[in-house]
């Protein structure tokens, strides 16, 4: 049901755990199936220096979380904001149609984390 890349990310998830001294945290949950995800970011000069995740959910949710962390590392916040849930699923080489909604956590958690960062550190600048 899952392709090799998904299984690899499930088996060897990248960047798991809580990030000590994270600059921002984003959470999201699926009301539909009950999966939840927390994403931690360390940002320096507008660039995502480090990232980690914790996910409660199925294989698709875990694999997309792991995939997302690989996709955003080294990206600017601007670039990261452009990543959609579809991009994550595509990067994984596709997910079974029924499981797509389970993977819809990852980009949402990222966007929430970036919003958290901006509210903490950029509010002063723009406001």
């Amino acid at each position, binding site marked *: 049901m899952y392709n090799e890349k998904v299984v690899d990310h499930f088996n060897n998830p990248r960047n798991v755990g809580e990030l000590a001294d994270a600059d921002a945290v984003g959470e999201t949950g699926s009301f539909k199936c009950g999966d939840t995800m927390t994403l931690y970011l360390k940002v320096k000069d507008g660039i995502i220096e480090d990232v980690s995740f914790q996910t409660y959910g199925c294989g698709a949710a875990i694999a997309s979380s792991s995939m997302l962390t690989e996709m955003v590392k080294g990206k600017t916040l601007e670039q990261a904001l452009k990543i959609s849930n579809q991009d994550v699923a595509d990067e994984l080489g596709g997910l079974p149609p*029924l499981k797509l909604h389970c993977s819809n956590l990852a980009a949402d958690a990222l966007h929430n984390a970036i919003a958290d960062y901006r509210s903490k550190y950029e509010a002063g600048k723009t406001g």
Partner: protein
Amino acid sequence: MSDRQVYMDHGATTPVREEVLEAMLPFLREQYGNPSSVHAKGRAVRSAVENAREKTALALGANTEEIYFTSGGTESNNIALRGAAKKQKKPGHIITSVVEHHAVLDVCRDLEKEGHRVTYLPVDSSGLLDPAAVEKAITPETFIISIMAANNEIGTLQPVGEIGAIAAGHNILFHTDAVQVTGQLPVDVKKLQVDLLSLSAHKFNGPKGVGALYRRKGVKIDPLYRGGGQERKLRPGTENVPGIIGLSRALELSVEEIPRKTKTLQSLRDRLIRGLLKIDDVVLNGHPEKRLPGNVNVSFKYIEGESILLGLDMQGIAASSGSACSSGSLDPSHVLSAIGLDHHTAHGSIRFTMGWGNSEADLDYVLDKVPGVVEKLRLISPMGKSV
């Protein structure tokens, strides 16, 4: 991925036994006659089919002419419930439970659309139905009571004998979906006082796509199909001869082995339950004793069932889950909700169903692997305890 394969999903389906395959093969080769044909080729097959019917009846304590072969549990349930409903001159009342298989529940929902009223009785936290509640639910319009003998997810055994007596006392038809229990525990249609009983061959090491309906003599239900009049018009269509032969052989073997097999499976089951409960934050779902001999259903807190299945699969272990993510419908199992599990606990449920071929060594392997799979997922989970 893993060299070792341990199949613990016998509740989903079982492997066909060698003896069963052997019995079937001639009917896929030289014994190809149509049992309805007059010539020798047909007559030989007719005699084999009737012999299979006799064996099937014997295994259930029924009379030969009370057995009708079908395409499986789903069809048997449909013929029983829809057939009884069709016989009603005006919309009536059906009593069933909230934990039935979809092959009963969804038929009842359809019958509601056709004007019948259905009472879906609740169960307690172990999945047990109270027979007194069945009696209380009876109305003058009630024409059938349908209660499963054993639940396919949590294995809870219902007091079908008591319900049968109640139904008989009120002169109401009693149907039981005995798909999970047939071949696992003794089934005697007379003792249970059932009028209609469904069974399916692939749950007791027979082939898929074949089952039977027991209909007590004198019970009137209308057929759903019209055709060549086979199975005394209740289920017309040229018989699935190899399937029927396989069903009867598998049933004969599994019923014969019940005394020995039940003990073995119960001891494996109880050992697996004890072993799994040693892991932190694990709860048993279903009844501690009144459950199918090979059924274990537990919930692992803080993690989700489909991911556990995937982790187990990597270790070569086959099981199943009632989690929302593995259901296809994105709702957790209706059975786990019915026994009062919160979404989170239902989401972390895993069912191991043992059967013919499972050994103590399989159990050693599973008990060795499960803690690691669970631990790994809990380390990923935001709810898991960090080490």
